[in-house]
């Protein structure tokens, strides 16, 4: 059943406490939640907008709510989930700030992963070719990319700092020759992806 789990999904799985309540925003076909339900016995809920994905969630038995996360999470109460996950979705939202603040309101902890636009080959691509970067891990033309809010790992640090958001854990990844490698040095230069666990700072 769980044939192949994308590596970052497995990493997210490792970060989650058993039996917790998990909300996955933009849950797609429900692969992550199905996996978390199986290995961590979580209580899963997904939010998804695409009907074809929702059909797949229903087949898998993953509870899913059809909703647009850009509209906010008004149906969800404060601190009602142990984890709110946004996996590879931040860069496609129309209002990333609104989505992040809503996540922090609803979740005790939030897990976010996104492609790092500061990754060296992207920088060189733009510098040398003078065109919008098109690489294996960002394979879109500028005119039909779903990614409308590119950011770098450094940008995310600054965002958290500016908005009083606590970074609990960070993991940096690159994918080389069919293998995922954890990046320890110069992540903003060498990592393709950033994965963060964040929470709101306790109000003083």
């Amino acid at each position: 059943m769980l044939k192949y789990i994308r590596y970052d999904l497995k990493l997210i799985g490792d970060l989650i406490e058993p039996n917790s309540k998990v909300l996955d925003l933009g849950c797609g076909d429900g692969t992550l939640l199905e996996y978390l339900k199986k290995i961590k016995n979580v209580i899963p809920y997904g939010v998804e907008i695409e009907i074809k994905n929702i059909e797949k969630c229903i087949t898998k038995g993953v509870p899913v709510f059809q909703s647009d996360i850009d509209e906010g999470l008004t149906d969800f109460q404060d601190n009602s989930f142990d984890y709110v996950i946004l996996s590879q979705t931040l860069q496609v939202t129309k209002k990333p700030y609104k989505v992040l603040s809503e996540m922090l309101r609803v979740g005790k902890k939030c897990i976010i992963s996104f492609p790092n636009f500061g990754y060296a080959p992207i920088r060189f691509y733009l510098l040398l070719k003078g065109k919008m970067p098109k690489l294996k891990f960002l394979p879109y033309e500028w005119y039909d990319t779903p990614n409308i809010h590119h950011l770098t790992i450094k940008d995310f640090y600054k965002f958290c700092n500016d908005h009083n958001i606590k970074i609990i854990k960070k993991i940096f990844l690159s994918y080389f020759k069919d293998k995922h490698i954890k990046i320890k040095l110069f992540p903003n230069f060498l990592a393709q992806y950033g994965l963060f666990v964040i929470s709101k700072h306790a109000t003083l």
Partner: protein
Amino acid sequence: MKKIKKEKSVGIVKTEYYTFAYPPNELILESGEKLGPITLAYETYGRLNKDKSNAILILHALSGDAHAAGYHSLNDRKPGWWDIMIGPQKAFDTNKYFIICSNVIGGCKGSTGPNSINPKTGKPYGLSFPVITIKDMVNAQKHLIDYLGIKRLLSLAGGSMGGMQVLQWTVSYPDMCYSAIPIATAPYLSAQAIAFNEVGRQAILADPNWKNGNYYNTNKIPSKGLAIARMIGHITYLSEESMHKKFGRRLQDKDKYSYKFLTEFQVESYLHHQGDSFVKRFDANSYLYITKAMDYFDISAGYKSLVDAFKNVKAKFLVISFSSDWLFPPSQSKEIANALRKNLKDVSYVEIKSSYGHDAFLLESKQLTILIKKFLNRISKEVMGKNA
């Protein structure tokens, strides 16, 4: 005469009847009054499996009846009211599931209602029929399900008032509902919907032929009032967009205004046709009783909140709404789904894009079929194992 394609239809079916609640064991109604004996009209399609685990109860809306699928005879012009959804290979696949559709009490389609004979007087009940609620309808259906020997329903499904019964079933008899599919429904009837019901009722009450409900032995029925009630109802079942698409401002059989108060626009003609044909198949008193039951419906009544009402339900839910439905708007279906989620129940919520308004649950079969099929597939695998 027509040929019925076997692979697409349940074929020729027959309405059956079950009578219970003989005095002194009458059904105690929510109002405190007693009703009995009670007859329920019902139909079944497909086969009940050996361990009776493949039964699905279909619940109908305001003007529906037990005849949900197939034909009563080869001369029937139309099949049952949800034939697009029930049959071989359809959403409610009769090759796999045993489908039951029960008429409601208070109705006029073979179940005990105001036009039934009161055994105490030998005359039709008329207004002496007690006021019934959605809960009473469900309590009566529980007797039928017990009689059929089914301990737990694999699923329950229904739209509009049928969805209200689905919700009531899961709250009243949590152990008997493995899963539930409330469609285009609400946890309580909205003020706007009560308002439309009341206008419909007043049209009936204002008809001189209504005679305080005692028209059964006269040769005149309150057809004008009932037709107007149905016309109002039909406006609420459509959407602005669907009306515009279907009729626009087109005139019926002419291209000039007559400057007289005649039926001129196609939309007028449509409503008159709906009203007139409804009068032939429905009883005015039943319309009063059933709309009243809908008005009274509030699944959270007697509980602290809607969340509290769903605390003990066990069913797994698929809640479905339609984007252009303004009578039972998506926001009300979302309320149901959110209250269930707050109880950490297994619930999914889908809003199907449609321009058909409230009527969509009877018409919009493609997306609805896919969702229900996938949901039931998964549910039946859980209950009956991989061989389902």
